[in-house]
């Protein structure tokens, strides 16, 4: 079968992207850039749209005039159209639509404390990208030339998670890992058990209870897909379950960030709550990025929870397989192959995540003493040293410092006009946090810390790639969420799913508010 479709769409997108790069570079869009306040992004706009525009032009020309024969070249190049299509939408949303909404929202003034409407509603490039994807598939349909490439969004998300492995410290991973195992362990097993219990009470078939419990308990549609054949779910049961989960997941993605802002949750608290309470793993990432669009701390927490959930998946599938065989006469005598289930359901990309974390820990991407990609280095330029006025301010206030260690570190800072060593850096940060000095002096201390603390170049690049991989993956995933599938929500799965989903979301929020702190 030949997959490539002779169509000018990719070529046209290539031309548009190159035109955007040229126009941005030549300053033709300066008025728009100023209005949208996206001056910092012009380099990215020029570079990315230029690069992918050229790719689009080259492959688009091959799509139009090349000779297409069955084989690997045809298969892989046929997917470029869909991939650039997703990226094109993600770029337009990230660079123009999201900033435009932010400008409008800011013009309306703050609506909740100092927060603007778009911040409270989480209307950023990720959520808008998913919405753009959903609108594309449900209103316009995915064009035939893009269908093959749209599936690449899954690869984008998995690659994003793998790269995310570079951004954790060992302490962070250990702490979040423990927290997620406790939280997910309790809520996954609790939800699965509760669905099976309610299913029994409401006398629904075992196959329906089995497939619903996996979807409600572990990771939404992914768990449903994994468990359906094991519990011999009927097509109507699968349709009801997936419809219910999709509606619930999309609703939660919009609702969770709003509630998080209302309750003023910290990044760890929100990441842990989203990672536990939202059913679908893609929507967990969406909600985390919606909550904190300008950083990935919340996403890091949420993804650890996602990974923990997916590691629980083989165990849950195994549990359901044994449970089903014991209860169902038609399956009696069937032997559950434990090894096969565990190996088949094991998520390989988690190994990639662990590998990247291990590589990062060796210092291959950042100096070995780095913490979350940042490292200490006080070999700085003369221009970065503290000014005479700043030194004078610190000298005046030095007497306020009672602790001998802090006083000595401050004295070394005043003398050298820069932080002397990594221990002094930690001491100076402690002094800043203790708020012993005036606001202005504390600002000087923060500046002194900032100039000796660097983000590794590779880690900086990884952060940018991760952001784009998630934007690409989630926009593409939005293109696969159809209204027709969501409309299948109904029957007992909707009732039981609603009850269990609500209990899980509310209870996990209470647990997080009571027991999860914001520090690691």
């Amino acid at each position: 079968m030949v997959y490539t479709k002779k169509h000018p769409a990719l070529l046209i997108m290539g031309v548009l992207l190159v035109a955007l790069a040229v126009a941005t570079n030549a300053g033709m869009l300066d008025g728009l850039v100023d209005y949208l306040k996206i001056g910092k992004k012009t380099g990215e706009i020029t570079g990315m749209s230029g690069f992918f525009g050229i790719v689009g032009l080259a492959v688009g020309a091959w799509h139009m005039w090349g000779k297409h024969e069955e084989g690997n070249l045809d298969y892989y190049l046929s997917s470029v159209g869909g991939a650039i299509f997703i990226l094109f939408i993600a770029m337009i949303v990230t660079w123009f639509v999201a900033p435009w909404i932010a400008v409008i929202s800011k013009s309306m003034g703050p609506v909740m404390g100092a927060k603007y409407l778009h911040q409270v509603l989480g209307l950023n490039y990720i959520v808008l990208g998913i919405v753009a994807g959903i609108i594309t598939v449900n209103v316009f349909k995915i064009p035939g030339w893009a269908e093959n490439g749209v599936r690449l969004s899954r690869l984008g998300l998995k690659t994003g998670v793998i790269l995310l492995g570079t951004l954790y410290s060992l302490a962070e991973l250990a702490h979040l890992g423990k927290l997620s195992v406790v939280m997910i362990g309790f809520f996954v097993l609790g939800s699965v058990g509760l669905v099976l219990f309610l299913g029994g009470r409401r006398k629904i078939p075992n196959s329906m209870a089995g497939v619903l419990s996996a979807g409600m308990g572990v990771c939404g549609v992914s768990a449903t897909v994994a468990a359906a054949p094991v519990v011999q779910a009927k097509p109507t049961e699968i349709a009801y379950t997936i419809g219910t989960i999709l509606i619930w997941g999309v609703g939660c993605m919009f609702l969770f960030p709003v509630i998080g802002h209302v309750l003023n949750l910290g990044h760890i608290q929100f990441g842990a709550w989203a990672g536990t309470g939202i059913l679908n793993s893609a929507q967990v990432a969406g909600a985390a990025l919606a909550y904190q669009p300008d950083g990935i701390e919340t996403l890091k927490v949420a993804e650890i929870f996602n990974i923990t959930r997916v590691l629980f998946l083989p165990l849950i599938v195994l549990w359901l397989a044994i449970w089903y065989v014991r209860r169902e006469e038609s399956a009696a005598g069937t032997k559950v192959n434990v090894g096969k289930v565990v190996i088949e359901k094991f998520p390989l990309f988690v190994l990639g995540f662990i590998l990247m974390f291990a590589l990062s820990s060796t210092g291959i991407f950042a100096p070995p003493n780095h913490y979350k990609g940042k490292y200490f280095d006080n070999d700085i330029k003369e221009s970065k040293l503290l000014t005479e006025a700043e030194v004078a301010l610190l000298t005046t206030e030095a007497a306020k410092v009672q602790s001998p260690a802090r006083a000595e570190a401050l004295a070394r800072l005043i003398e050298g006009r820069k932080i002397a060593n990594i221990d002094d850096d930690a001491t100076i940060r402690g002094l800043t946090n203790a708020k012993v000095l005036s606001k202005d002096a504390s600002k000087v201390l923060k500046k002194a810390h900032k100039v000796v603390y660097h983000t590794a170049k590779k880690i900086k690049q990884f952060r940018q790639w991760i952001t784009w991989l998630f934007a690409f993956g989630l926009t593409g995933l939005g293109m696969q969420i159809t209204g027709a599938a969501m409309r299948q929500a109904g029957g007992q799965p909707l009732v039981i799913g609603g009850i269990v989903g609500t209990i899980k979301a509310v209870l996990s929020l209470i647990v997080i508010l009571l027991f999860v702190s914001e520090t690691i």
Partner: protein
Amino acid sequence: MTPARILLASHGTPGARAAEQAALSLCAREGTIWHLEVVPDFWKGMRGDDWLNNAITQQRFGDYVESQLERELAEHAEALSREVLDRGFSYENLSVLGKPAECLLDAAARETFDLVVIGSPRPKGTPGYRSRMKMETLVRGLRIPLFVAPHPDR
């Protein structure tokens, strides 16, 4: 007119069963009933949100759903064909994936039919797929008479 070539859209629900009975009672002696079974195209979007599973699991799910849908279609076709043949009519089967109204219009254009028979929408609250026949699309596109059997629960 007694129709000798009837296109019957049925997927085994109570409404569709009423349509089957109507087709059997309307069909001329030694006539042919063409049985159209439509698998709704929402199934294409059913794996949409899954990104965590590996290719083996996704393939297994796809194969499983396909086999289950095929089994349901085959069982229904088997039951109906027996009834049609017992009554002395000929039976033909056509199974397609897509939107019900569009598939029915396509099927109606393939052969020469005297009548199209369908069931009416199920009453609200009755369980089943949300994949309804778009009546406006259907009646605007059909060039042959259409018979809508009343739902037995109304």
